[in-house]
């Protein structure tokens, strides 16, 4: 088994919630490589990811799904291609409270274009409670302009259920005929 095949990549700008999202899904304590921010990043958060974040989901069959978070700072973007190679799909988190979230959207979709073309992407928009605009409808419009079909939701990276729905949407996008787990559905409809 090639473990490189089983990984999901989380990306997005600084402060979008990648580290938190991975922590909310990981079955082991996530490995964080945060350090005090020393450049422009300091304006948005006191500590930021300088290499990558890592978490893992352990399936009952013994398989592992590795969760990698890309460093938000562009000076580490040489790592992104290496990291995404062979991944299942991409989770893109966009911080709605940033100055120009659509620019972030274009930037990351462009940088991961090759990966997205061979897998799938889902988009989670964070911080909408702090800054509700632009609304999701405007994001959909931008995606249509770019010719990208992707699930897009409002998410709170701290909420496990939100991140879980994002990853589930990624899987259903890759294969719409996947079945729902009975345990989940019984919970969901009751």
């Amino acid at each position, binding site marked *: 088994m090639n473990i490189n*095949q*089983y990984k999901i990549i989380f990306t997005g700008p600084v402060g979008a919630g990648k580290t938190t999202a991975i922590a909310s*899904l990981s079955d082991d304590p996530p490995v964080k490589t945060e350090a005090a921010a020393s450049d422009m990043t300091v304006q948005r958060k006191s500590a930021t990811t300088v290499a990558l974040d890592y978490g893992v*989901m352990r*399936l*009952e*069959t013994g*398989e592992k*799904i590795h969760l990698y978070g890309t460093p938000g700072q562009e000076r580490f973007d040489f790592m992104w291609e290496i990291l995404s190679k062979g991944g*299942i799909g991409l989770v893109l988190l966009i911080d709605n409270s940033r100055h120009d979230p659509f620019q972030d959207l274009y930037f990351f979709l462009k940088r991961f274009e090759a990966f997205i073309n061979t897998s799938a992407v889902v988009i989670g928009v964070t911080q909408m409670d702090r800054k*509700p605009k632009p*609304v*999701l409808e405007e994001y*959909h419009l931008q*995606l249509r302009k770019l010719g990208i*079909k992707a*699930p*897009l*939701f*409002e*998410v709170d990276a701290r*909420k*496990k*259920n*939100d991140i*879980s*729905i*994002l*990853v*589930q*949407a990624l*899987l*259903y*996008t*890759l*294969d*719409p*005929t*996947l*079945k*729902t*787990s*009975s*345990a*989940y*559905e*019984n919970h*969901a*409809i009751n």
Partner: protein
Amino acid sequence: MGTKKTIKTAVIGGESKCNNVLRFFLQTNGHTQLVEESDAEVFLIDMDQAAAEKRLEKLQKRYPRIPVITLSLLDPTNTGTIALKKPLKPADLLHALDKVGKPAPVRTADRPQLEKEQAETRERETTCKQTAAQTTSGKTKHIAIKPDFYDPEDYFQGLLMKVYRQAITTGINLRLEAGWKPIFIYPHRRLVWTSGDDKQLQAFCHLPLKHLAQVSEKGTAGIGHTIQPVLQGEMADCLDVAQKMDGFLWKVAFWSAAGRLPHTIRADQLISLKHWPNLTRYLDLPEALRISALLYHRPHTPIGVSQVLGVDARCVFGFISAANALELIRVHRPKIQKKMEPPPPPVKKTGLFQRLLGHLQRR
């Protein structure tokens, strides 16, 4: 007066000075008959007693068509009731009783029809849920179903959509009263607020508006709908706990549909999703992720979605109704059938994805 029909009246609530006086009055005035809740043609409730609000809500939910007379020291705040202010004058009470007592109640004749409709709604929803569970446990049972349709205009959904449009077009905050709790709509912030809970709202969504209109004709105050601008500062404190307009409409449409398709969409018509619904913030519907993925991937007929996914058609129809209310459904012309792309090739990692999905959904 002697020819007047005796009105079967139930006083709601336990022993209290007010209730005891009311019961005594009702037993002795000659025009009313004191009965139990289940036999009543009209309810009387003292809103100044403990838990009266909750009791009233339960009552209205359980007997949505039976008029309620409320008594209170405060100004009336409840919709859908005849409100009398204390100190109570016997003449006012008799007048109110007289009002609900004529014309001869249509309730007795209407109740079986209403109950039948409500039972059908419950049955549709239950089957949808049961089948969702069967599908997911691998025991998919295809239920042959004749598609059922509804017109959103016949339900609260149609009224809500109309008021949404009005609020968005004019930019004015609006207050809608339609025989239930008032609903406040704030178009600039895309928010909606009501004091009612989801269970009450669900029950209300099931009721065709024509039934409410009949009750209105009977003279029960406040049942007919009104749309008014929200006064400056009115309910401003509630915005912190308000709901998003789209999420509110999503569940109203799903509950109004009760497993049926909107009458504008045929069960054999190709449809697709314009984009995914914001499922992290909407009411969780059975199989919503799967249906979204399939309909976003490429056009299918509503019946086709049911067959491809092995999901009860009523779950699919309910989802489509909710998505259609948010204008997320695109209806395709038949000619697209010829151009439709072939089914996608089997995905190599389906087994892994299925296990990963199970892992996520069990947590």
